């Protein structure tokens, strides 16, 4: 299973990922995705996760 993680030094809290992948990512008080460490992406959400990774303007969201 693939996992999702954030490069916090790159993330600017633009919030696109939380909009595109609300099943896995909520936005915190400041618009940053609430995620700790690496989060497993269930197979049915793989496509949405890839779309969120591509949409990140800071390239901070990573799929591994």
């Amino acid at each position, binding site marked *: 299973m693939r996992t999702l*993680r954030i*490069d*916090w*030094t790159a993330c600017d809290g633009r919030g696109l990922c939380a909009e595109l992948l609300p099943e896995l990512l909520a936005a915190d008080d400041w618009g940053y995705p609430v995620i700790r460490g690496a989060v497993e992406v269930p197979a049915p959400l793989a496509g949405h996760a890839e779309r969120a990774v591509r949409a990140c303007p800071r390239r901070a969201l990573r799929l591994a």
Partner: protein
Amino acid sequence: MTRRLLDGSPDLTGHRRRHGPVPYHGKDALVGALEAAGLTGRGGAGFPTHRKLAAVGGAGRRVVVVANAAEGEPASAKDRALLAANPHLVLDGLRIAADALGTRALHLYLGARADSGPVAAALAERAGSGYDRAGVAVHTAPDTFVAGEESAVVAAIEGRPPVPADKARPVFAHGVGGAPTLVLNVETLAHLALVARYGPAWFRAAGTADEPGTFLVTVGGAVREPGVREVPYGVPLGDVVIPAAPVRAVLAGGYHGTWAPLDPRIPLSRAGLAAYGATPGAGVVSALDARRCPLDAAARVVAYLAGQSAGQCGPCLNGLPRLAETFGALARGHPQQGEVARLAGLVAGRGACHHPDGAVRFVASTLSFFADDVAAHLAGRCVAAGVR
């Protein structure tokens, strides 16, 4: 008293008389000796040194070795005390590690509050006498809490702002200039230099079976003799903290640390402090004067930590100042326990380094250890005000 590190001679003549030439060990021999000795990192995390050494290099890649004395923890003074008392032992350790890894790319990263004089004099003596001709590039850290974090050290040496990096590429594989990089605390290197000379059995003659050797501890706060001491792991807390006033608690591990009672029988070691959820960290023990309000003291620490965010990671940059404000309000008697807990939960585990986690640990420890004080403040009283 076991004084292995602090009894040294700052000049090369005395150092050479006491310890002889710099020994050579191949990588496998040195890794084996360090494993048998059970040496762990003295920078705070306590990671086994032999594993760090074994992880770098191989496959003919050029390796970089860094002696880390950044010591960004405000309550710690041990790295600069060691470099002033015994610079040659640290430089020996750097050279021994470098020889084992087959590199001459050596760096020493000094703390902002360190005196670079003894180090510069020691390096000149070594080069001038032929004792050790390997050049060491000396850098000075800024006076920030996170400047000594491994990836921040790499950034500083590369001439970039010394702030932590994302951990997708670990320093041991991809450090200075992309080379595998070994970053060891200067106290760790001094112990390494002694293990390389006198062997694992000698090293294990001090300390406990699980935590062998001595370590440097910075004792501060309401104690008779604040300063840096060298003690074996497992030494009773009462041997290290001699109160100069009524003491309410000790903070173990510095500003990212944990409160424990001043029970003189507690062994000063990871095992001994584990019962309180604490560790010695980088060897910091601070005694809190019972006449001082612990919540006010803690609020100042949290405010300091918030100001020490490197400003890169959103949850830390935004969350730590909010946490500090809210904790401060709670310390002044406003019922903000729920909001403090919520903010702590938002900050923890969401950064490139462990600075937010350390701040959250300190907040959680304060709220649990001083729960009676919190209740008193909410009722408009203060426990510390009643102490004479």
